[in-house]
């Protein structure tokens, strides 16, 4: 038998560096499942292509219909406006939750409790009925005749109400994301900043927030994508000019709902795909200076080549490679310690 003879040499010196030559382990079932999945998928696609109910010509016809593309634009507007308000409000709520003032803290907690504890659809419906609850909006001192008073219906159209409804709900989630981000920054960062004489707001904007962005951005990207899809619920307000409701309205006239749902889905997919790409670049930008294991691999490699200090995490001889200007490499051992 040459079994033992074949095993020993690679362990010893001579062949240890040679690439391992071995018969690959076979995974026959992987192949089987892959073929099966591809077959099922192909079957579905072929079937869908010829199934009359999908009505592909209609999909093509409505995909770039002016009403649909206008509705897509409105969907984007809803997403952007409500997300911007939600992020601003979320940062405020997050800072409030971290406040030493117990009243401020409880108010923020109460807000989250209400807005996270009830469905968006219900909240949007209530916003739609707001003019029944508050018929006029008055500005002035309590229990006095108001300085200005206008009717709620006139002041807030359904688009505004939809934005308010979406934003206030989303702010509750954003608050939690921002809070987690702020808490993820090491306490030493705040101390170092304060010790340099920087004010609270400088510490926040220059030191804490930029670092918490790394933690805040990925979930925020998810929230934007989620918000884009949640805009389809504003029909509860009722606001009807965004993508989903608009395509439903068109199909109510044509009695052909399926192709219009496909059209809407294609538009949603198009937007979410763009957002995902944007998110990737934002994440890269904010992981600057932090050796992110995955996204910065090449970057870290570069730096190592230059410093020579990084790669030897366990091997422990970094000082040797320091620049020639270095004054100390010889001394450290003799210094101080014992």
């Amino acid at each position, binding site marked *: 038998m040459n079994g033992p003879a074949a095993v020993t040499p690679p362990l010893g010196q001579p062949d240890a560096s040679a690439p391992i030559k071995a018969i690959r382990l076979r995974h026959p079932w992987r192949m089987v499942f892959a073929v099966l999945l591809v077959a099922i998928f192909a079957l579905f696609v072929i079937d869908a292509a010829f199934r009359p109910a999908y009505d592909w010509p209609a999909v093509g016809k409505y995909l770039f219909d002016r009403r649909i593309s206008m509705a897509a634009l409105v969907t984007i507007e809803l997403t952007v406006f409500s997300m911007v308000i939600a992020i601003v409000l979320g940062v405020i709520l997050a800072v409030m939750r971290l406040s030493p003032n117990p009243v401020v803290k409880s108010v923020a907690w109460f807000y989250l409790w209400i807005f996270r504890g009830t469905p968006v659809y219900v909240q949007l419906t209530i916003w739609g009925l707001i003019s029944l609850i508050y018929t006029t909006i008055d500005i002035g001192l309590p229990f006095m005749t108001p300085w200005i008073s206008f009717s709620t219906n006139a002041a807030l159209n359904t688009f505004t109400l939809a934005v308010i409804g979406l934003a206030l709900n989303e702010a509750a989630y954003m608050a939690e994301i921002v809070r987690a981000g702020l808490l993820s920054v090491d306490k030493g960062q705040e101390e170092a900043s304060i010790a340099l004489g920087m004010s609270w707001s400088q510490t926040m904007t220059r030191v804490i927030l930029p670092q918490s962005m790394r933690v805040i951005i990925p979930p925020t990207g998810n929230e934007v994508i989620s918000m884009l899809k949640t805009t389809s619920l504003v029909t509860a307000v009722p606001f009807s000019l965004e993508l989903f409701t608009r395509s439903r309205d068109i199909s109510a006239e044509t009695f052909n709902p399926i192709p219009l749902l496909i059209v809407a889905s294609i538009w949603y997919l198009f937007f979410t795909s763009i957002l995902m790409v944007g998110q990737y670049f934002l994440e890269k930008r904010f992981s600057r200076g932090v050796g992110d294991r995955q996204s910065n691999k090449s970057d870290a490699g570069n730096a190592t080549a230059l410093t020579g200090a990084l790669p030897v995490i366990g091997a422990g001889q970094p*000082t040797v490679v320091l620049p020639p200007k270095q004054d100390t490499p010889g001394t450290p051992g003799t*210094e101080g310690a014992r």
Partner: protein
Amino acid sequence: MSGSTGPGSTVVEPPMVLAEQVTKSFGSNEVLKGISLEVRRGEVMCLVGPSGSGKSTFLRCINHLEVLSAGRLSVDGELIGYRESNGKLYEMAPKEAAKQRRDIGMVFQRFNLFPHMTALQNVMEAPLRVKGLPKAKVEATARDLLARVGLADRADYYPAHLSGGQQQRVAIARALAMEPKLMLFDEPTSALDPELVGEVLDVMKGLAKEGMTMIVVTHEMGFAREVADSLVFMDAGVVVESGLPSEVLANPRHARTQAFLSKVL
């Protein structure tokens, strides 16, 4: 509040740091039990002692990162964290406290460099934002400082790409950028690999030679013997013994000091 002497207005030149019966409690845990000491201008004082003895807490009291429970602490004749008028103490607003901290540099055990800024940006941040100095001037000074700590060619590196010793030297440069009159070092070499300790201590020696007033919490007895003007041994929140480093290290008078030194020397 005891405070036997005045805040130092009568003296021609007040001591750089004057601590009188400084006491600090965290809840029911009294960490500092009345520390009184004086650091002269240009003096290098080493604070040594077992962990938990309150050295770091005392250091953090000096720039008001911790608020005293009792006693008085003044830097350069100025009461830290409080304003005194008509015999009453008024707590300082954050802005005033920040103003006091500008003149006190601090170096931390774990460096606490800002990871999202390069070495140069780390050093430039405070002079730019806090003092509002012009950018070109700040950058020139920052590059000088980095050269002084031997890192001129590392200016554009992020902290993650520097070794521990290099990071700590950047941290020292960052503190010096505010032109402090007092430097506090909180175990500056404790988080470093042994072979990186020397490069940081060398920078500190250079600083001491230039006449910087320094308070150093450290376990590096060799550094204390060579550089320090005075050595203070603390244990369980009190100053057990202090004096010239050579004397305290060679002939410790208290049993507690002897026991500690026999372990670390």
